[in-house]
């Protein structure tokens, strides 16, 4: 359920961002394109002025779309903190609050009972594990830890190998972009194919490694999750890095190809479009793969399950809906969109549609094909965790995209920024176009007379809140101790 809430939240986010971008960018652009030919001569000046303002909005909109997620993360964090450490009262929680009294129907109750049974078993097993771990001799401990370190390196090596594969694939794809036909199509989508293959293979291998490492079950889950997050988000970073190094000749803007325009203008006459295209390809391919998996893998399995009774006995069983990996897929898609939004304004709309379709297809597949995973993901802390991962993805997108306005020269051939040395220089230009009073006001805000008192004030406010938080924390701890003391005296 938390997965679907998260998905719905992302759909809303994408839709809002698309509306904003559409309002400021696409509609004026379409309007101007249709009347542009008439006005080209006389109103060239006004046209370019409006164009500049539009480009400015365009540049900064996508990076400022994070306040709503931060707010909901704050709420979730507050809940997680207020209920204290969840380790305390684990068994009593399950026993007294585990049963959902609103559970109706035979199948739901049986499921719930199995669920509670499983949770208790997991906890009991963890207890016995801890007892056994404490009883290990020193020699066995050394062996175990060295094995774990070695396996950690192996897993890390696998991930680095995947990154190298993506790097090579992107380079190859960019070099051979002139091919036509089916081969050309495959080559174009090569980075996406490699990423998808990597995202499929590496977690499988990491699972096998985890069997050797023999961590406790909860630690295994966390480690697997961290590895998967690292793999997905940094692979995106690798693609961006590869593209950047090709566009700017590895940062050396005065060498060879890049000397004339500070970017490789022969290979990339319109590099923003190219980057946007890569992001678009990633999104599209991800969507196709998801739908393909749903249709080609889970649906036939369900049919087999219904038709052949003996298949029930097979170890395959029904498909499980694994929440963490599905959520990671969502976060990955969202990060791709954020990276591409600067270059390809229609991307949020495409993503909205994609998530919308994905929501309903996953719902259908969940209710018909899959049985719920026995290893339930704790829903109170999971929202917080999803938002943290989303924040990490956003940070990555911002970090990758933010050098662009400042350093890389916009392409001369296309795009709204083509008259400027950098994208950022549009800000000072538009600024000087504003009225005198507005300029003075903004100068005043930027000047030291205003900003230093403001800074000092915000420091004071922050200190106040930190002090308040620590006082509350202390009083909570004190009350808890008092409670224990009072009840012990009876």
């Amino acid at each position: 359920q938390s997965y679907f809430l998260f998905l719905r939240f992302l759909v809303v986010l994408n839709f809002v961002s698309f509306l904003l971008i559409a309002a400021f960018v696409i509609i004026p652009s379409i309007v101007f394109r249709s009347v542009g030919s008439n006005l080209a001569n006389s109103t060239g000046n006004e046209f370019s002025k409006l164009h500049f303002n539009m480009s400015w909005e365009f540049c900064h909109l996508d990076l400022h779309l994070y306040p709503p997620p931060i707010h909901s993360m704050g709420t979730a964090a507050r809940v997680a903190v207020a209920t204290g450490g969840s380790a305390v009262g684990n068994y009593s929680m399950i026993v007294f609050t585990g049963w959902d009294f609103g559970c109706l129907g035979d199948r739901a109750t049986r499921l719930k009972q199995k669920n509670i049974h499983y949770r208790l078993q997991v906890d009991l097993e963890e207890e016995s594990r801890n007892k056994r771990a404490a009883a290990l001799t020193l020699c066995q401990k050394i062996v175990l830890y060295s094995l774990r370190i070695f396996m950690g390196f192996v897993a890390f090596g696998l991930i680095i190998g995947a990154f190298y594969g993506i790097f090579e694939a992107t380079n190859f794809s960019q070099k051979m972009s002139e091919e036509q036909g089916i081969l050309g199509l495959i080559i174009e989508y090569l980075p996406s194919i490699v990423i998808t293959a990597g995202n499929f293979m590496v977690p499988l291998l990491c699972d096998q490694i985890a069997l050797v490492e023999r961590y406790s079950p909860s630690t295994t889950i966390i480690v697997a999750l961290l590895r998967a997050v690292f793999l997905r988000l940094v692979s995106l970073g690798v693609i961006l890095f590869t593209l950047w190094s090709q566009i700017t000749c590895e940062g050396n803007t005065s060498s060879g190809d890049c000397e004339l325009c500070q970017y490789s203008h022969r290979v990339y006459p319109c590099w923003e479009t190219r980057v946007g295209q890569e992001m678009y390809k990633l999104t599209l391919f991800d969507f196709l793969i998801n739908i393909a998996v749903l249709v080609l893998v889970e649906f036939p399995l369900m049919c087999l399950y219904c038709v052949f009774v003996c298949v029930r006995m097979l170890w395959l069983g029904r498909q499980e809906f694994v929440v963490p990996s599905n959520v990671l897929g969502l976060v990955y898609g969202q990060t791709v969109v954020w990276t591409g939004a600067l270059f390809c304004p229609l991307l949020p709309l495409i993503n909205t549609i994609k998530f919308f379709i994905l929501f309903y297809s996953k719902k259908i597949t969940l209710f018909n094909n899959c049985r719920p995973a026995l290893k339930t993901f704790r829903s109170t802390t999971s929202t917080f965790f999803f938002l943290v991962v989303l924040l990490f993805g956003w940070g990555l997108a911002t970090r990758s995209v933010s050098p662009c306005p400042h350093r890389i020269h916009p392409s001369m051939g296309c795009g709204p920024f083509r008259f400027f040395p950098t994208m950022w220089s549009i800000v000072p230009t538009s600024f000087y176009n504003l009225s005198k009073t507005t300029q003075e006001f903004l100068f005043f805000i930027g000047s030291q007379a205003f900003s230093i008192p403001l800074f000092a004030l915000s420091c004071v406010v922050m200190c106040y809140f930190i002090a308040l938080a620590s006082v509350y924390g202390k009083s909570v701890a004190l009350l808890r101790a008092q409670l224990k003391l009072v009840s012990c005296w009876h």
Partner: protein
Amino acid sequence: MGNKQTIFTDEQLDAYQDCTFFTRKEILRLHGRYHELAPHLVPMDYTNDPDCKLPLALIVNMPELKENPFRNRIVESFSEDGMGNLSFNEFVDMFSVLSETAPRELKAIYAFKIYDFNVDNYLCKEDLEKTLNRLTKEELTPEEVDLVCEKTIEEADLDGDNKLSFADFENMISRAPDFLSTFHIRI
């Protein structure tokens, strides 16, 4: 709206609205549900406060309660005689406490009563064993049941008497974020 209903007087409906967390419409709907459990026993006209109680067996057959492993205890906790025979007032009370709008403290009181199988105002080990068996449909081994009960008492017992009093229970419930949403029956 002018919908003249003759099941309850206006004063009765006002009283119900004050004492429970239901609106007028919901109370009339509840009366409909109560009536259809035993149409020949339950009068349609409640204006003169008839003394009518439905036995346990009829009430636990309601679809909302049928699959609940604690259905007998729930009905018994709300009945005055402790045997599960509910008058309409007690029926409304039961669903009112289990509704969404009931406060946490009230729910905790009745949850304690429900889990207290031997009705001695303490949750002792036998009560916990019975609770656990109903939760897991007796699929845990006796050793595991024993272990879980011991751990539960260890975690929640603050006064050290090896059983949970209401204060212990309430203290533990106050730290559970899911309690309000799980202790809820929609009718």
